[in-house]
Protein backbone atom coordinates (compact mmCIF):
# COMPACT_ATOMS: atom_id res chain seq x y z
CA UNK A 1 0.00 0.00 0.00
CA UNK A 2 2.74 2.41 0.96
CA UNK A 3 6.16 2.89 -0.60
CA UNK A 4 8.58 4.08 2.09
CA UNK A 5 10.82 7.06 1.58
CA UNK A 6 14.24 6.21 0.16
CA UNK A 7 16.95 6.73 2.78
CA UNK A 8 19.36 9.57 1.96
CA UNK A 9 22.80 8.41 0.79
CA UNK A 10 25.29 11.21 0.21
CA UNK A 11 28.79 11.00 -1.24
CA UNK A 12 31.54 13.49 -0.38
CA UNK A 13 30.82 15.76 -3.34
CA UNK A 14 27.16 15.97 -2.42
CA UNK A 15 28.12 16.75 1.15
CA UNK A 16 30.40 19.57 -0.07
CA UNK A 17 27.60 20.93 -2.20
CA UNK A 18 25.33 20.83 0.80
CA UNK A 19 27.92 22.70 2.83
CA UNK A 20 28.26 25.42 0.20
CA UNK A 21 24.54 25.65 -0.09
CA UNK A 22 23.93 25.79 3.63
CA UNK A 23 23.75 29.57 3.74
CA UNK A 24 21.35 29.71 0.86
CA UNK A 25 19.31 26.94 2.41
CA UNK A 26 18.74 29.16 5.41
CA UNK A 27 16.94 31.56 3.12
CA UNK A 28 14.71 28.90 1.65
CA UNK A 29 11.40 27.90 3.12
CA UNK A 30 11.92 24.93 5.39
CA UNK A 31 8.88 23.43 3.78
CA UNK A 32 10.75 23.08 0.53
CA UNK A 33 13.49 21.15 2.33
CA UNK A 34 10.91 18.88 3.86
CA UNK A 35 9.00 18.51 0.65
CA UNK A 36 9.82 14.82 0.23
CA UNK A 37 6.54 13.07 -0.30
CA UNK A 38 5.36 9.60 0.47
CA UNK A 39 3.66 7.65 -2.27
CA UNK A 40 0.65 5.79 -1.01
CA UNK A 41 -2.87 4.89 -1.96
CA UNK A 42 -4.02 4.82 1.64
CA UNK A 43 -7.46 6.09 2.56
CA UNK A 44 -7.19 8.78 5.19
CA UNK A 45 -10.22 10.27 6.87
CA UNK A 46 -9.90 13.49 8.85
CA UNK A 47 -12.86 14.07 11.15
CA UNK A 48 -13.44 17.77 11.61
CA UNK A 49 -12.40 20.87 9.68
CA UNK A 50 -11.58 23.17 12.56
CA UNK A 51 -8.08 24.38 13.27
CA UNK A 52 -6.73 20.87 13.82
CA UNK A 53 -8.52 19.09 10.98
CA UNK A 54 -7.80 21.80 8.44
CA UNK A 55 -4.13 21.98 9.41
CA UNK A 56 -3.84 18.20 9.01
CA UNK A 57 -5.64 18.23 5.65
CA UNK A 58 -3.14 20.76 4.33
CA UNK A 59 -0.10 19.09 5.84
CA UNK A 60 -1.01 15.61 4.65
CA UNK A 61 -1.97 16.77 1.19
CA UNK A 62 1.51 18.31 0.86
CA UNK A 63 3.31 15.21 2.12
CA UNK A 64 1.33 12.36 0.59
CA UNK A 65 1.27 11.48 -3.07
CA UNK A 66 -1.67 9.38 -4.20
CA UNK A 67 -3.42 9.20 -0.85
CA UNK A 68 -7.19 9.49 -0.80
CA UNK A 69 -7.80 12.10 1.87
CA UNK A 70 -11.32 12.90 3.00
CA UNK A 71 -12.08 15.88 5.24
CA UNK A 72 -15.40 15.48 7.04
CA UNK A 73 -16.71 18.94 7.84
CA UNK A 74 -20.32 20.06 7.34
CA UNK A 75 -19.82 23.79 7.95
CA UNK A 76 -19.14 26.22 5.12
CA UNK A 77 -17.74 28.91 7.41
CA UNK A 78 -14.54 28.72 9.39
CA UNK A 79 -14.66 30.51 12.73
CA UNK A 80 -11.59 32.01 14.35
CA UNK A 81 -12.73 31.09 17.84
CA UNK A 82 -9.78 32.67 19.69
CA UNK A 83 -11.29 35.99 18.59
CA UNK A 84 -14.63 35.39 20.27
CA UNK A 85 -13.49 36.85 23.62
CA UNK A 86 -12.63 40.05 21.77
CA UNK A 87 -16.05 40.05 20.10
CA UNK A 88 -17.82 39.48 23.41
CA UNK A 89 -15.73 42.28 24.93
CA UNK A 90 -16.79 44.73 22.23
CA UNK A 91 -13.30 45.05 20.75
CA UNK A 92 -13.80 43.16 17.48
CA UNK A 93 -16.72 42.94 15.12
CA UNK A 94 -18.07 39.41 14.66
CA UNK A 95 -17.38 39.50 10.91
CA UNK A 96 -13.67 39.64 11.59
CA UNK A 97 -13.69 36.06 12.86
CA UNK A 98 -15.31 34.38 9.85
CA UNK A 99 -13.89 33.09 6.57
CA UNK A 100 -15.16 30.53 4.09
CA UNK A 101 -13.82 27.05 4.70
CA UNK A 102 -13.32 26.82 0.95
CA UNK A 103 -10.38 29.22 1.33
CA UNK A 104 -8.47 26.62 3.32
CA UNK A 105 -9.47 23.20 1.97
CA UNK A 106 -6.52 22.07 -0.16
CA UNK A 107 -6.86 20.75 -3.67
CA UNK A 108 -6.88 16.99 -3.95
CA UNK A 109 -8.71 16.57 -0.65
CA UNK A 110 -12.29 15.37 -0.80
CA UNK A 111 -14.40 17.71 1.32
CA UNK A 112 -17.29 15.68 2.73
CA UNK A 113 -19.96 18.19 3.77
CA UNK A 114 -21.69 15.89 6.20
CA UNK A 115 -21.54 15.56 9.97
CA UNK A 116 -20.04 12.32 11.23
CA UNK A 117 -22.38 10.36 13.48
CA UNK A 118 -20.44 7.23 14.33
CA UNK A 119 -17.05 5.55 14.32
CA UNK A 120 -16.60 1.79 14.07
CA UNK A 121 -12.97 1.50 15.08
CA UNK A 122 -12.85 -2.28 14.65
CA UNK A 123 -14.09 -2.16 11.05
CA UNK A 124 -12.38 1.16 10.32
CA UNK A 125 -15.55 2.89 9.22
CA UNK A 126 -17.03 6.31 9.83
CA UNK A 127 -20.80 6.77 9.52
CA UNK A 128 -22.18 10.04 8.23
CA UNK A 129 -25.50 11.77 8.83
CA UNK A 130 -26.78 10.90 5.34
CA UNK A 131 -26.34 7.19 6.19
CA UNK A 132 -23.28 6.87 3.97
CA UNK A 133 -20.09 5.30 5.25
CA UNK A 134 -16.43 6.23 4.84
CA UNK A 135 -13.89 3.47 5.14
CA UNK A 136 -10.38 4.36 6.20
CA UNK A 137 -6.92 2.96 6.58
CA UNK A 138 -5.89 5.83 8.82
CA UNK A 139 -8.09 8.14 10.85
CA UNK A 140 -7.32 11.57 12.26
CA UNK A 141 -9.86 12.55 14.92
CA UNK A 142 -10.06 16.33 15.05
CA UNK A 143 -13.71 16.79 15.88
CA UNK A 144 -13.27 19.44 18.52
CA UNK A 145 -15.47 19.16 21.57
CA UNK A 146 -19.08 19.36 22.60
CA UNK A 147 -20.65 22.05 24.79
CA UNK A 148 -22.89 20.36 27.34
CA UNK A 149 -25.20 23.21 28.34
CA UNK A 150 -27.85 20.61 29.09
CA UNK A 151 -25.91 19.59 32.21
CA UNK A 152 -26.94 22.92 33.75
CA UNK A 153 -30.65 22.65 34.57
CA UNK A 154 -32.67 25.29 32.77
CA UNK A 155 -29.81 26.36 30.53
CA UNK A 156 -29.68 26.25 26.77
CA UNK A 157 -27.47 28.06 24.26
CA UNK A 158 -30.60 29.77 22.92
CA UNK A 159 -30.81 31.71 26.18
CA UNK A 160 -27.49 33.45 25.58
CA UNK A 161 -28.17 37.14 25.15
CA UNK A 162 -31.48 37.01 27.00
CA UNK A 163 -32.25 37.50 30.70
CA UNK A 164 -28.74 38.78 31.40
CA UNK A 165 -27.11 35.52 30.27
CA UNK A 166 -23.84 35.51 28.39
CA UNK A 167 -21.60 32.68 27.19
CA UNK A 168 -18.64 33.39 24.96
CA UNK A 169 -18.33 29.73 24.03
CA UNK A 170 -21.79 29.24 22.54
CA UNK A 171 -21.11 30.45 18.97
CA UNK A 172 -20.14 33.66 17.22
CA UNK A 173 -23.75 34.74 17.56
CA UNK A 174 -23.55 33.81 21.24
CA UNK A 175 -20.39 35.86 21.66
CA UNK A 176 -22.09 38.83 20.01
CA UNK A 177 -25.16 38.47 22.21
CA UNK A 178 -22.88 38.15 25.24
CA UNK A 179 -21.41 41.53 24.29
CA UNK A 180 -24.93 42.96 24.12
CA UNK A 181 -25.87 41.46 27.49
CA UNK A 182 -22.77 43.01 29.10
CA UNK A 183 -23.60 46.35 27.44
CA UNK A 184 -27.10 46.19 28.90
CA UNK A 185 -25.77 45.45 32.36
CA UNK A 186 -23.25 48.30 32.20
CA UNK A 187 -25.90 50.69 30.87
CA UNK A 188 -28.04 49.85 33.88
CA UNK A 189 -25.39 51.55 36.01
CA UNK A 190 -25.22 49.01 38.81
CA UNK A 191 -25.90 45.42 39.70
CA UNK A 192 -24.28 42.07 40.18
CA UNK A 193 -22.38 40.06 37.62
CA UNK A 194 -21.43 36.43 38.14
CA UNK A 195 -18.67 34.79 36.15
CA UNK A 196 -18.38 31.03 36.23
CA UNK A 197 -15.99 28.25 35.28
CA UNK A 198 -16.74 24.65 34.36
CA UNK A 199 -15.89 21.51 36.32
CA UNK A 200 -14.46 19.82 33.23
CA UNK A 201 -11.59 20.51 30.85
CA UNK A 202 -12.63 23.38 28.59
CA UNK A 203 -11.32 24.86 25.38
CA UNK A 204 -9.38 28.06 25.88
CA UNK A 205 -9.34 27.67 29.63
CA UNK A 206 -8.36 31.31 29.94
CA UNK A 207 -11.56 32.56 28.29
CA UNK A 208 -13.69 32.71 31.48
CA UNK A 209 -10.91 34.73 33.11
CA UNK A 210 -10.46 36.97 30.09
CA UNK A 211 -14.18 37.72 30.01
CA UNK A 212 -13.97 38.73 33.67
CA UNK A 213 -10.95 40.95 33.10
CA UNK A 214 -12.32 42.71 30.01
CA UNK A 215 -15.64 43.32 31.73
CA UNK A 216 -13.77 44.75 34.74
CA UNK A 217 -11.98 47.10 32.33
CA UNK A 218 -15.30 48.29 31.00
CA UNK A 219 -16.78 48.66 34.47
CA UNK A 220 -13.77 50.69 35.60
CA UNK A 221 -14.14 52.90 32.52
CA UNK A 222 -17.63 53.87 33.67
CA UNK A 223 -16.06 55.77 36.56
CA UNK A 224 -18.32 54.14 39.11
CA UNK A 225 -16.91 50.64 39.43
CA UNK A 226 -18.08 50.41 43.04
CA UNK A 227 -21.69 50.39 41.92
CA UNK A 228 -21.13 46.98 40.36
CA UNK A 229 -20.58 43.72 42.20
CA UNK A 230 -18.49 41.08 40.43
CA UNK A 231 -18.34 37.48 41.65
CA UNK A 232 -16.31 34.59 40.25
CA UNK A 233 -17.57 31.10 41.07
CA UNK A 234 -14.96 28.41 40.53
CA UNK A 235 -15.59 24.68 40.88
CA UNK A 236 -12.14 24.05 42.34
CA UNK A 237 -9.45 25.74 44.38
CA UNK A 238 -7.59 27.04 41.35
CA UNK A 239 -8.45 29.26 38.42
CA UNK A 240 -5.81 28.28 35.86
CA UNK A 241 -3.55 25.29 35.21
CA UNK A 242 -0.24 27.16 35.17
CA UNK A 243 0.65 27.72 38.84
CA UNK A 244 2.27 31.16 38.55
CA UNK A 245 -0.58 32.49 36.43
CA UNK A 246 -3.10 30.91 38.81
CA UNK A 247 -1.62 32.85 41.72
CA UNK A 248 -1.42 36.02 39.64
CA UNK A 249 -5.06 35.87 38.58
CA UNK A 250 -6.26 35.21 42.12
CA UNK A 251 -4.29 38.17 43.43
CA UNK A 252 -5.47 40.41 40.60
CA UNK A 253 -9.09 39.43 41.16
CA UNK A 254 -8.69 40.32 44.83
CA UNK A 255 -7.07 43.64 43.93
CA UNK A 256 -9.87 44.46 41.51
CA UNK A 257 -12.61 43.69 43.98
CA UNK A 258 -13.79 40.38 42.52
CA UNK A 259 -15.43 38.13 45.10
CA UNK A 260 -14.00 34.65 44.58
CA UNK A 261 -15.95 31.63 45.75
CA UNK A 262 -14.34 28.26 45.22
CA UNK A 263 -15.71 24.72 44.97
CA UNK A 264 -19.02 25.77 43.46
CA UNK A 265 -20.26 24.73 40.06
CA UNK A 266 -23.20 26.24 38.21
CA UNK A 267 -25.88 23.55 38.47
CA UNK A 268 -29.08 25.35 37.44
CA UNK A 269 -30.35 28.63 36.16
CA UNK A 270 -33.74 30.32 36.31
CA UNK A 271 -33.61 32.91 33.52
CA UNK A 272 -36.97 34.51 34.33
CA UNK A 273 -36.05 35.11 37.96
CA UNK A 274 -32.42 35.89 37.07
CA UNK A 275 -31.25 33.39 39.66
CA UNK A 276 -28.46 30.84 39.45
CA UNK A 277 -28.02 27.77 41.55
CA UNK A 278 -24.53 26.69 42.52
CA UNK A 279 -23.70 23.32 43.99
CA UNK A 280 -20.83 22.78 46.37
CA UNK A 281 -18.51 20.22 44.85
CA UNK A 282 -16.14 19.81 47.73
CA UNK A 283 -12.54 20.76 48.36
CA UNK A 284 -11.27 17.56 46.74
CA UNK A 285 -12.43 18.78 43.37
CA UNK A 286 -9.39 20.75 42.29
CA UNK A 287 -10.05 22.89 39.26
CA UNK A 288 -7.39 21.58 37.01
CA UNK A 289 -7.89 19.98 33.67
CA UNK A 290 -7.85 16.57 35.34
CA UNK A 291 -11.42 16.64 36.54
CA UNK A 292 -13.10 13.33 36.88
CA UNK A 293 -16.63 14.57 37.28
CA UNK A 294 -18.93 12.35 35.30
CA UNK A 295 -22.40 13.17 34.09
CA UNK A 296 -24.01 11.33 37.01
CA UNK A 297 -22.05 13.47 39.40
CA UNK A 298 -23.67 16.56 37.94
CA UNK A 299 -26.98 15.65 39.49
CA UNK A 300 -26.15 14.24 42.91
CA UNK A 301 -28.79 14.70 45.53
CA UNK A 302 -28.27 16.23 48.91
CA UNK A 303 -25.44 18.52 47.92
CA UNK A 304 -25.08 21.95 49.44
CA UNK A 305 -26.65 24.50 47.14
CA UNK A 306 -26.51 28.26 46.92
CA UNK A 307 -29.02 30.42 45.09
CA UNK A 308 -27.60 33.68 43.78
CA UNK A 309 -29.36 36.62 42.11
CA UNK A 310 -27.62 38.23 39.17
CA UNK A 311 -28.00 41.01 36.66
CA UNK A 312 -25.50 39.38 34.33
CA UNK A 313 -24.08 35.87 34.38
CA UNK A 314 -21.34 34.41 32.19
CA UNK A 315 -22.02 30.71 31.74
CA UNK A 316 -19.22 28.26 30.96
CA UNK A 317 -20.74 24.89 30.08
CA UNK A 318 -19.23 21.51 30.94
CA UNK A 319 -17.47 20.10 27.89
CA UNK A 320 -16.61 16.68 26.52
CA UNK A 321 -15.78 14.91 23.29
CA UNK A 322 -18.77 14.84 20.90
CA UNK A 323 -21.33 12.14 21.70
CA UNK A 324 -20.50 10.02 18.63
CA UNK A 325 -16.86 9.91 19.75
CA UNK A 326 -17.85 9.14 23.34
CA UNK A 327 -20.01 6.27 22.10
CA UNK A 328 -17.21 4.81 20.02
CA UNK A 329 -14.44 2.47 21.11
CA UNK A 330 -11.96 5.30 20.70
CA UNK A 331 -12.96 6.95 23.97
CA UNK A 332 -10.73 6.62 27.02
CA UNK A 333 -11.69 3.61 29.14
CA UNK A 334 -9.73 4.43 32.25
CA UNK A 335 -7.99 7.28 33.97
CA UNK A 336 -9.21 10.82 34.42
CA UNK A 337 -10.42 11.12 30.84
CA UNK A 338 -12.50 7.94 30.80
CA UNK A 339 -15.79 8.15 29.02
CA UNK A 340 -15.25 11.80 28.08
CA UNK A 341 -12.19 12.29 25.87
CA UNK A 342 -10.26 10.57 23.09
CA UNK A 343 -7.76 7.99 24.32
CA UNK A 344 -4.41 9.07 22.89
CA UNK A 345 -0.81 9.07 23.98
CA UNK A 346 -0.44 12.74 24.83
CA UNK A 347 3.12 12.81 23.48
CA UNK A 348 2.82 10.87 20.20
CA UNK A 349 -0.86 11.76 19.62
CA UNK A 350 -1.45 8.13 18.55
CA UNK A 351 -4.49 6.30 19.86
CA UNK A 352 -3.57 4.03 22.73
CA UNK A 353 -5.39 0.97 21.29
CA UNK A 354 -5.82 1.67 17.58
CA UNK A 355 -2.40 2.55 16.07
CA UNK A 356 -3.96 3.68 12.79
CA UNK A 357 -5.87 6.39 14.64
CA UNK A 358 -4.41 9.72 15.72
CA UNK A 359 -6.05 12.52 17.66
CA UNK A 360 -5.40 16.23 17.63
CA UNK A 361 -6.94 19.34 19.13
CA UNK A 362 -9.70 19.80 21.68
CA UNK A 363 -11.03 16.23 21.50
CA UNK A 364 -8.01 14.51 23.03
CA UNK A 365 -7.70 13.52 26.66
CA UNK A 366 -4.85 15.73 27.80
CA UNK A 367 -4.32 17.74 30.98
CA UNK A 368 -4.02 21.00 29.04
CA UNK A 369 -3.95 21.72 25.32
CA UNK A 370 -7.39 22.77 24.18
CA UNK A 371 -6.17 25.82 22.28
CA UNK A 372 -5.29 26.73 18.70
CA UNK A 373 -1.70 27.23 19.86
CA UNK A 374 -1.65 23.58 20.92
CA UNK A 375 -2.80 22.59 17.44
CA UNK A 376 0.13 24.52 16.01
CA UNK A 377 2.47 22.38 18.11
CA UNK A 378 0.57 19.11 17.65
CA UNK A 379 0.09 19.21 13.87
CA UNK A 380 3.76 18.58 12.92
CA UNK A 381 3.86 15.76 15.49
CA UNK A 382 0.77 14.06 14.07
CA UNK A 383 2.08 14.54 10.54
CA UNK A 384 5.48 13.02 11.29
CA UNK A 385 4.10 10.16 13.37
CA UNK A 386 1.29 9.30 10.96
CA UNK A 387 3.77 9.11 8.09
CA UNK A 388 6.05 6.93 10.22
CA UNK A 389 3.12 4.69 11.13
CA UNK A 390 2.26 4.34 7.44
CA UNK A 391 5.83 3.16 6.83
CA UNK A 392 5.75 0.90 9.89
CA UNK A 393 8.58 2.84 11.45
CA UNK A 394 8.97 4.00 15.06
CA UNK A 395 7.16 7.24 15.78
CA UNK A 396 9.81 10.00 15.70
CA UNK A 397 7.98 13.04 17.09
CA UNK A 398 6.78 13.92 20.57
CA UNK A 399 4.49 16.71 21.71
CA UNK A 400 5.75 18.53 24.80
CA UNK A 401 2.33 19.83 25.71
CA UNK A 402 3.01 23.31 24.40
CA UNK A 403 0.02 25.56 24.72
CA UNK A 404 -0.43 29.29 24.80
CA UNK A 405 -2.94 31.64 26.32
CA UNK A 406 -2.66 35.33 25.65
CA UNK A 407 -4.12 36.14 29.06
CA UNK A 408 -5.98 39.39 28.54
CA UNK A 409 -5.85 41.21 31.87
CA UNK A 410 -7.70 44.27 30.62
CA UNK A 411 -8.76 45.72 27.30
CA UNK A 412 -5.41 46.80 25.87
CA UNK A 413 -2.98 44.66 27.86
CA UNK A 414 -2.17 40.97 28.12
CA UNK A 415 0.36 38.39 29.21
CA UNK A 416 1.71 35.95 26.62
CA UNK A 417 1.46 32.79 28.70
CA UNK A 418 3.06 29.78 27.02
CA UNK A 419 3.65 26.54 28.88
CA UNK A 420 3.86 22.77 28.51
CA UNK A 421 3.61 19.49 30.38
CA UNK A 422 7.05 19.48 31.97
CA UNK A 423 7.97 20.69 35.47
CA UNK A 424 4.44 21.37 36.65
CA UNK A 425 3.39 23.25 33.53
CA UNK A 426 6.54 25.35 33.38
CA UNK A 427 6.69 28.31 30.99
CA UNK A 428 7.84 27.70 27.41
CA UNK A 429 8.27 31.24 26.06
CA UNK A 430 8.67 31.53 22.29
CA UNK A 431 10.19 35.00 22.43
CA UNK A 432 13.10 35.67 24.80
CA UNK A 433 12.20 39.35 24.88
CA UNK A 434 8.64 38.77 26.15
CA UNK A 435 8.41 37.66 29.76
CA UNK A 436 5.26 35.56 30.27
CA UNK A 437 4.92 37.11 33.75
CA UNK A 438 4.66 40.66 32.40
CA UNK A 439 1.46 42.38 31.40
CA UNK A 440 2.36 44.22 28.24
CA UNK A 441 1.08 46.14 25.28
CA UNK A 442 3.16 43.94 22.97
CA UNK A 443 1.39 40.78 24.13
CA UNK A 444 -1.93 42.53 23.56
CA UNK A 445 -0.91 43.61 20.06
CA UNK A 446 0.03 40.01 19.30
CA UNK A 447 -3.43 38.90 20.44
CA UNK A 448 -5.20 41.74 18.64
CA UNK A 449 -3.23 41.79 15.39
CA UNK A 450 -0.83 38.87 14.91
CA UNK A 451 -2.30 35.65 16.26
CA UNK A 452 -5.16 35.51 13.76
CA UNK A 453 -2.75 35.67 10.79
CA UNK A 454 -0.60 33.04 12.50
CA UNK A 455 -3.72 30.89 12.98
CA UNK A 456 -4.54 31.04 9.27
CA UNK A 457 -0.95 30.07 8.48
CA UNK A 458 -1.45 27.03 10.75
CA UNK A 459 -4.60 26.12 8.82
CA UNK A 460 -2.62 26.24 5.60
CA UNK A 461 0.00 23.97 7.12
CA UNK A 462 2.58 26.76 6.92
CA UNK A 463 3.23 27.30 10.60
Amino acid sequence: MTRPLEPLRLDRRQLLKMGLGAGAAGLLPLGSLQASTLSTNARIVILGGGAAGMAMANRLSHRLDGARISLVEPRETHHYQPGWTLVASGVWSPEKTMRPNANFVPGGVEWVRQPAVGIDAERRRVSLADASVLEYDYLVVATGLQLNYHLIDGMSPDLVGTHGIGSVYASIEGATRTRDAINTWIAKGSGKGIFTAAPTPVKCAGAPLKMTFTTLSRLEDTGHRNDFQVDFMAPGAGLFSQPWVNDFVKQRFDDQGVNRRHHYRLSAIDPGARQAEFTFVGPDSEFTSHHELRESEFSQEGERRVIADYDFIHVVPPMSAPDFVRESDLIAREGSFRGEWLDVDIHTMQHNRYPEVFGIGDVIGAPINKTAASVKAQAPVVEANLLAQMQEQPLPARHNGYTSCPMITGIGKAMLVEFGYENDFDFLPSFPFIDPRDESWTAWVMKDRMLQPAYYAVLEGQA
Partner: protein
Amino acid sequence: MTIQGALTILMYALAPFLWLIVAGVGLLVAVQLVARLRGYRTLHHRCKLASLASLAVGLSGLWWIPLFTNSRLGYVTTLFDWVAMAGAVIGLAFAAWLVLHPLTYLVRAPRYVRQKGTA
Protein backbone atom coordinates in the same frame (compact mmCIF):
# COMPACT_ATOMS: atom_id res chain seq x y z
CA MET B 1 8.77 28.67 11.44
CA THR B 2 9.59 28.61 7.73
CA ILE B 3 10.09 31.71 5.61
CA GLN B 4 7.03 30.66 3.66
CA GLY B 5 5.13 30.46 6.94
CA ALA B 6 6.37 33.89 8.01
CA LEU B 7 5.32 35.33 4.65
CA THR B 8 1.90 33.73 4.98
CA ILE B 9 1.44 35.33 8.39
CA LEU B 10 2.64 38.69 7.06
CA MET B 11 0.25 38.44 4.12
CA TYR B 12 -2.74 37.83 6.37
CA ALA B 13 -1.62 40.57 8.80
CA LEU B 14 -1.17 43.22 6.13
CA ALA B 15 -4.09 42.30 3.89
CA PRO B 16 -6.64 44.58 5.64
CA PHE B 17 -4.27 47.55 5.30
CA LEU B 18 -3.00 46.84 1.81
CA TRP B 19 -4.86 49.81 0.34
CA LEU B 20 -3.31 52.10 2.95
CA ILE B 21 0.17 50.72 2.39
CA VAL B 22 -0.16 51.03 -1.40
CA ALA B 23 -1.52 54.58 -1.07
CA GLY B 24 1.30 55.58 1.31
CA VAL B 25 4.05 54.07 -0.82
CA GLY B 26 2.45 55.58 -3.94
CA LEU B 27 2.43 59.05 -2.36
CA LEU B 28 6.03 58.68 -1.21
CA VAL B 29 7.28 57.53 -4.60
CA ALA B 30 5.27 60.18 -6.47
CA VAL B 31 6.52 63.06 -4.32
CA GLN B 32 10.12 61.85 -4.42
CA LEU B 33 9.99 61.33 -8.18
CA VAL B 34 8.43 64.70 -9.02
CA ALA B 35 10.79 66.53 -6.66
CA ARG B 36 13.86 64.82 -8.06
CA LEU B 37 12.79 65.62 -11.61
CA ARG B 38 12.68 69.25 -10.50
CA GLY B 39 16.16 69.17 -9.04
CA TYR B 40 15.57 68.02 -5.46
CA ARG B 41 18.57 66.43 -3.75
CA THR B 42 18.10 65.10 -0.23
CA LEU B 43 21.27 66.52 1.30
CA HIS B 44 21.20 69.85 -0.52
CA HIS B 45 17.74 70.92 0.54
CA ARG B 46 17.43 72.10 4.14
CA CYS B 47 14.08 72.68 5.73
CA LYS B 48 13.52 72.90 9.47
CA LEU B 49 9.78 72.94 8.97
CA ALA B 50 9.83 69.52 7.28
CA SER B 51 11.98 68.09 10.05
CA LEU B 52 9.79 69.52 12.80
CA ALA B 53 6.60 68.39 11.07
CA SER B 54 8.03 64.89 10.63
CA LEU B 55 8.94 64.80 14.29
CA ALA B 56 5.42 65.87 15.18
CA VAL B 57 3.95 63.15 12.94
CA GLY B 58 6.22 60.58 14.61
CA LEU B 59 5.35 61.71 18.11
CA SER B 60 1.66 61.71 17.25
CA GLY B 61 2.09 57.95 17.02
CA LEU B 62 2.33 57.85 20.80
CA TRP B 63 -1.32 58.81 20.80
CA TRP B 64 -2.82 56.96 17.87
CA ILE B 65 -0.72 53.76 17.65
CA PRO B 66 -2.10 52.51 20.99
CA LEU B 67 -5.59 53.59 19.88
CA PHE B 68 -5.12 51.79 16.57
CA THR B 69 -4.31 48.63 18.53
CA ASN B 70 -7.35 49.03 20.81
CA SER B 71 -5.05 49.89 23.70
CA ARG B 72 -3.71 52.96 25.48
CA LEU B 73 -0.29 54.49 26.08
CA GLY B 74 -0.52 53.70 29.79
CA TYR B 75 -0.26 50.00 28.96
CA VAL B 76 3.07 50.48 27.18
CA THR B 77 5.10 49.43 30.18
CA THR B 78 7.79 46.82 29.56
CA LEU B 79 11.19 47.52 28.06
CA PHE B 80 10.23 45.69 24.89
CA ASP B 81 6.95 47.62 24.71
CA TRP B 82 8.95 50.85 24.64
CA VAL B 83 11.49 49.49 22.15
CA ALA B 84 8.63 48.51 19.84
CA MET B 85 6.87 51.84 20.35
CA ALA B 86 10.09 53.82 19.79
CA GLY B 87 10.71 51.84 16.60
CA ALA B 88 7.22 52.64 15.38
CA VAL B 89 7.56 56.34 16.20
CA ILE B 90 10.99 56.62 14.55
CA GLY B 91 9.78 54.72 11.49
CA LEU B 92 6.72 56.91 11.26
CA ALA B 93 8.79 60.09 11.57
CA PHE B 94 11.23 58.88 8.92
CA ALA B 95 8.45 57.96 6.50
CA ALA B 96 6.86 61.36 7.07
CA TRP B 97 10.19 63.06 6.46
CA LEU B 98 10.63 61.17 3.17
CA VAL B 99 7.39 62.74 2.01
CA LEU B 100 7.50 66.15 3.67
CA HIS B 101 11.10 67.01 2.88
CA PRO B 102 10.74 66.80 -0.93
CA LEU B 103 7.25 68.29 -0.62
CA THR B 104 8.63 71.46 0.97
CA TYR B 105 11.17 71.61 -1.86
CA LEU B 106 8.35 71.48 -4.40
CA VAL B 107 6.45 74.21 -2.58
CA ARG B 108 9.56 76.41 -2.60
CA ALA B 109 10.79 75.33 -6.05
CA PRO B 110 9.39 78.39 -7.89
CA ARG B 111 11.30 80.61 -5.43
CA TYR B 112 14.52 78.67 -6.15
CA VAL B 113 13.96 79.07 -9.86
CA ARG B 114 13.39 82.83 -9.43
CA GLN B 115 16.52 83.13 -7.25
CA LYS B 116 18.59 81.28 -9.84
CA GLY B 117 17.15 83.49 -12.61
CA THR B 118 17.96 86.66 -10.65
CA ALA B 119 21.51 85.54 -10.03
